């Protein structure tokens, strides 16, 4: 589904990704762990199409298309979703209106008519329950005055609404208490199926108790340096990141 080959990227003169390769197939959940400043969030941003980075080599192929040639909005309409580490507050636009615009943009891309008001309401009602998001949040301005947990639940709600094929979750667990973490993780688990895939970026193993990954990758200094199953995450938690640094000779 998503194939990242030898990806190099930088911001200004600083090289951040130094030859990252990763293959993700439908139905799989991959986790990327690693110390701070190793390029995890950069990878998420580059997949989603944020303009601040310059890709100097490599490619990202999604369903046979090189997405590096697409704008961020085209990628999203093709089925790529980024759950933001820091969801943005936008006063003046309700989540309802935001989702209506986003869903209809996707439908238009698929050659479908805009969704009817009735069907849209029904869909919102159904999807918000996945993350136990109260109805009142949907008519409020996007993320305005939301707690950290509410913002992350809103991200997963948007994921549920847009039904992406491939979702990147950028440190979705950061700043969440255990209840919010559980709700978010259970929400994601409800959305997993054989046709979609997830890339879960996290600093801690905690989230992976709830969203159980098929593969765990350890990222260090702009590359994936180790890959294993869910037990690798437990080992990371237990031993910290220092042994990885030693192993790769840093």
């Amino acid at each position, binding site marked *: 589904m998503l194939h990242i080959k030898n990806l190099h990227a930088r911001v200004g003169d600083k090289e951040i990704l130094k030859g990252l390769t990763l293959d993700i197939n439908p139905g799989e959940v991959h986790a990327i762990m690693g110390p701070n400043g190793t390029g995890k969030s950069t990878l998420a941003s580059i997949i989603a199409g944020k303009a601040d980075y310059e890709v100097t080599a490599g490619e990202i192929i999604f369903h046979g298309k090189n997405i590096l040639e697409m*704008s*961020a*909005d085209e990628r*999203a309409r093709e089925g790529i979703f980024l759950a933001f580490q820091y969801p943005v507050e*936008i006063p*003046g636009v309700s989540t309802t*209106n*935001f989702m209506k615009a986003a869903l209809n943009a*996707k439908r238009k891309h698929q050659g479908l008519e805009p969704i009817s008001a009735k069907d849209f309401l029904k869909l919102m009602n159904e999807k918000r329950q996945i993350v136990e998001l109260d109805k009142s949040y949907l008519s409020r301005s996007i993320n305005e005055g939301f707690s950290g947990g509410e913002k992350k639940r809103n991200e997963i709600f948007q994921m549920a609404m*847009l039904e992406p094929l491939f979702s990147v979750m950028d440190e979705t667990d950061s700043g969440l208490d255990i209840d919010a973490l559980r709700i978010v993780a259970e929400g994601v688990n409800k959305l997993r199926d054989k046709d979609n895939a997830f890339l879960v970026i996290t600093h801690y193993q905690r989230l992976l108790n709830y969203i159980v990954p098929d593969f765990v990758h350890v990222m260090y200094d702009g590359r994936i340096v180790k890959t294993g199953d869910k037990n690798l995450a437990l080992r990371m938690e237990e031993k910290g990141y220092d042994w990885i640094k030693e192993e790769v000779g840093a």
Partner: protein
Amino acid sequence: MAFTDNIDNTFAALEKDVLTPEREAALASFKALGVPSGRHEEWKYTNIKTKLPESLRLDDGRRTTDDSQRKFNSFKNIEGTKLVFVNGSYAPALSAIAAQDGVVAGSLRALRSQHADLIAKHFNKATDTTSENFAALNTAFAQDGAFIYIKRNVKAAQPVFIIHLYDAAAADVFTQSRNLIIAEEGAEINIVEDFQNAAGEKFYNHLAEIFVAANAEVNYVTLQLDNKHTTSVNTIDARVDQDARYHITTLTFEGKLVRNNVNAYMDGKGALATLNGLYLCTANNHIDSHILVDHRVPHCDSNQVYKGVLDGESTGVFNGKIFVRKDAQKTNAFQSSKAILLSDEASVNSKPQLEIYADDVKCSHGAAIGQINKNELFYLLARGIDEATARGILTYAYGSSIIADLPLEALRDHLYDRLKERLNITF
């Protein structure tokens, strides 16, 4: 040929009435003042001199469209009185008066005899014809406009709409129209004034005088939404008496050249004025908001929030004056002027001007000029919304807060829809 060449002949041809002496004085004043050039301090950034018609031609009743054929946005889904004017002249066939006890609403020309004393007492008492060029011109030549009179302690249950239409036959007419609004002690009313010029180049010089007596409340909304080909000066002068509340909001979505003079004179202790505005400017258009709040007495509050959105090669001006006179202790005056520039070629001149002569006051002002927030934009793009729409949505988010404070839910909904239409977004 100069604009002022035929001015005496035009004046001589006007009907004489009780206001003629006021008009003669205003004519003399205008002849002395002339049309302001760029050397005039208050017109430094707005070059109107070369944009006006070559001669002063008033509405002479020429019409290409029969009133019954006229299409306009009538606010038909909102209850209330509708006063419609075509080129500044009252159009009874298009108007609808909702009878309300204690509220008189109609044509100033038609009602001037019936309410002669009241009109004489107020006409020209809120505006400044000695130094304001266009106020002088308007006072000399305006023949008609809205007259709204709300009697003591009457809370008007329904709003009054003043709708100005401009006929295509009158491309050379420089419409002069004039409102007089009198809210007596304890009276309350919502007034919405809309200028609709769907097609063809038009010129107008409009002036509204608003008297808000003690403990009265007037909420006045000026709409310039269908204004693409219009060159206009619109002056709104209010006198706000003790404990009265006056709210004026100006929404300008288009305009070839727009100059809005919004002046509030705080005459009585404990008065409140809010002066808000949203303007959207495109192409090589120009929108100038000149705001004045004159705190003359103690214990008054004023709040101003202006927001601009400038695209293309358009230019904007915000000039916000706050005077706090020596006696106006315990004044609270607040001003915020913001603008976002959507293109590299658009520009805005923002000039806050606070002149404070009292020592026990709270006054603040803030001005900010910026761009669309990149993180917000990326958030929308990442959900599949194309860039033009995303920018429209963020502009909507920025501007719609000015609408959120308006009275009448049906009006707000109408204006939200118009703003979306203007920004080419749907949801």
